[in-house]
């Protein structure tokens, strides 16, 4: 893909990691003109200065509404910008919104040139979300383990139990109350702090 053919792409994302993942994917696919904007101040002015063909923005970004202004007839707009797909392409809208990303395309860019960019964007966003989900789960599992250790310590001390007995007590209480063992452990810690 020659430099003339490669559309200019702007990524608007406050998450530097996700933007880097996307940027890398686009570069690997041969898109050379990719710029990342992470600073939301004067967003429109920066976009007009870069004059991109495609703008990708994450849906957690409140500045998405700022971009909607580009649809308006205004002296500031050099080129008309349209939503990324035509009305018939509902599946693409669905997939991108579910992945958490939206794209704005300058009018006139052919649909078959947009599709691969969008597909890549959706898959990278989904990959990032999966990664983040795994990280969260690992983090909360670690947290739980720490809380359970502390609660066991309290039970051993107060009730004179062995470590195994303390754990069995926690587990059976959690099952009886239909709660997570971490929640029961947390309430033991809270209660013991209140009774200090």
């Amino acid at each position: 893909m020659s430099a003339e053919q490669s559309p200019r792409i702007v990524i608007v994302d406050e998450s530097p990691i996700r933007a880097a993942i996307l940027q890398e994917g686009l570069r690997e696919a041969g898109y050379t003109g990719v710029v990342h904007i992470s600073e939301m101040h004067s967003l429109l002015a920066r976009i007009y200065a870069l004059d991109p063909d495609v703008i990708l923005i994450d849906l957690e970004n409140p500045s998405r509404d700022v971009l909607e202004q580009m649809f308006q007839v205004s002296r500031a707009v050099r080129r008309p910008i349209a939503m990324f797909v035509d009305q018939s392409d509902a599946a693409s809208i669905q997939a991108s919104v579910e992945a958490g990303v939206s794209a704005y395309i300058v009018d006139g860019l052919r649909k078959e040139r947009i599709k691969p960019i969008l597909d890549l964007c959706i898959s990278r966003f989904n990959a990032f979300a999966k990664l983040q989900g795994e990280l969260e789960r690992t983090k909360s599992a670690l947290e739980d383990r720490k809380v359970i250790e502390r609660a066991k310590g309290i039970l051993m001390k107060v009730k004179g139990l062995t470590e195994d007995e303390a754990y069995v007590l926690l587990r059976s209480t959690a099952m009886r109350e239909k709660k997570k063992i971490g929640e029961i452990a947390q309430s033991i810690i809270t209660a013991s702090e209140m009774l200090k």
Partner: protein
Amino acid sequence: MTKSVRIGFIPLVDAAALIVAVDKGFTAAEGLDVTLVREVSWSNVRDKLNIGLFDAAHLLAPVAIASSLGIGHVKVPIVAPFNLGINGNAITVSPALHSALMEEIEGDPFDPMSTAKALARVVGKRRRDGTEPLTFGMTFPFSTHNYQLRFWMAAGGVDPDEDVRLVVLPPPYMVDSLANGHVDAFCVGAPWNSVAVDLGVGHILHFVADILVRAAEKVLAVRQNWSEKNPDIVAALVRASVRAAEFIEIPQNRGEAARILAQPERIGVDAEVIQRTLDGRLKIAPDGTIRENSRYLLVGREGAGRPDPVQAAWLYAQMVRWGQTALSPDALSTAMGVFRPDLYDAAVGHEAKPSETSGAVGAFAGPPFDANDIAGHLKAFAIGRWKP
């Protein structure tokens, strides 16, 4: 059988009836299991409603109309069986712009014609001095805020497209932008005007009730085809919202309503600030000056909940006036058809008596609004993009 409903909202006080309906258990009493989803942008709310990730939404009334007409975006017919609020916005200006306006003003500072004319003089002076044009923040191209700002300044002779800059800013960024000088003024809903005043970075210049007696603000929006498939859910949502709106409007309930709305996962600001809006008793200047207007925000009073197609027609007329769309009788009737008093009446089980003020817009400038003659109405305004 309990029915699950997902509803998107933006953290603003005019989502009150919806939030209270859910959190006070009024929707549950109607057999609905509602999940409220807080969103960060109107574009997200619109898109998620359009593609069915949301069943219903707290939506800017003009977005519901624009979506049904396919202006600026994908065309998806939307209907509004309940009006979530009348009025509720305010125009806040920086202390510097406030003093500039007060130096130029002739007459009552609460009279929008006096302030609009003062603004025209400030704008003229800046032009002569070679100072940058003033920048006004608003929330969305298809927003009441955009049209209210434009209506106000144009009445004083300021062309909103030529003489000043109008920029979209997400509501949570408004106060910061005013504080650091990125905008000189903004029009936004509660609580952001009060937040700016409390921080000493803004003066509330006008309540929208000064500019328009009655302005439909947010609606409970559903996709038209979804409403046709789920008439019972629509009716249940309307009944729960009516009950919540009535609850909020009883003065002794306001404290509880404000506490519900203040929850971090709902609006997430101080209950006291929210209650000021509900009571229509606002601090308008950093020195603590209080201004009261019982019509600051109408949630359930004066038949506010019943959608009024005349309001939809007025909003459509503003889209035409500012060049967002062409004038067409078909589009007008589509726009009016978005507001559905019939669905409201069917839900509450009787034809609600329209209040004295319904059917009226009550703008401070220009002739009374006539939904049957939009071209004639628009001709009365010197500034605008529409040409007959």
